[in-house]
């Protein structure tokens, strides 16, 4: 890949925007929140982040937001990822490595079925916040 300029970046963005408004725009977006605290990173949260981007991109999923939070206080099951797909229960997954991240995309976000072997038991609210 040749070095991209800011101008090229702007053009690519405009092209994408056009393409997106041509599609049906009233779909609500899914949200992925990745725990990027010290423990999460040590446990491989960045690998999960890259895998989410790659898998969502290669499967042409749109309308998704990926955000990060610091410490979720769930060290023992890092990397932790919260997934919120409209019309489905909000779930927290534990031990999300790159492979599990790809499964979350295909099974949960596309297939609308929970990845049950990685669901983190909903802890008491005071532990999370």
């Amino acid at each position: 890949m040749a070095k991209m300029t800011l101008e090229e970046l702007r053009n690519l963005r405009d092209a994408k925007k056009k393409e997106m408004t041509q599609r049906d725009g009233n779909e609500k977006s899914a949200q992925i929140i990745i725990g990027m605290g010290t423990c999460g990173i040590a446990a491989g949260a960045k690998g999960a982040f890259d895998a989410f981007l790659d898998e969502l991109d290669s499967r042409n999923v749109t309308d998704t937001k990926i955000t990060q939070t610091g410490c979720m206080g769930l060290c023992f099951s890092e990397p932790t990822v919260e997934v919120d797909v409209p019309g489905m229960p909000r779930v927290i997954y534990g031990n999300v490595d790159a492979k599990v991240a790809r499964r979350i995309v295909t099974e949960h976000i596309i297939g609308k079925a929970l990845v049950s072997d990685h669901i983190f038991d909903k802890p008491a609210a005071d532990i999370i916040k």
Partner: protein
Amino acid sequence: MHATICDLITDLVQNSIEAQATEISLNVEETKTNLNIAIVDNGKGMSASTLKKAKDPFWSDGIKHKHRKVGLGLPFLFQTAEMTGGNVAIESEEGNGTTATITFDPAHVDLPVFGNFTTAAVTLMTYGFDGNLEIRHCLDEKEYSIEKQELIEILGDLNDLESLILLKEYISSNEEELRKT
């Protein structure tokens, strides 16, 4: 603890974000003989006694990890420097911000591998925080820099999948250009 230099850098920038900084600059310079890292923020800063405590691996301010009073970021940095003959200087003034200047010897066998700068930069640029972040990366004579507010102006919401993918392409093309011989 941390597998790579890039993870260590991530942790330090997160410290600046957690200190409510609105302006953060990260400068990474690699040469044959030196790896220089500088992080400057205008966050809440530390008093002399807090700074002293912050070097202690058995201390964290108790606000962030209610269940764990042990910070891992700074102690790891000092430990890595000590093990590899590197140097760390932290200057901080309460209310005015913090500057961390780090020099490592890239040839030292015990220095962690550098890691993936593209992913570190993408995650830092899209970490939830309202201020501005400037990242500059130099390798010998080449360099590039990116600025968060400018990227938002071009891409819109950086946390949208479309923006994230373009941002990653953009940064990785700049990284490739740096490494090209």
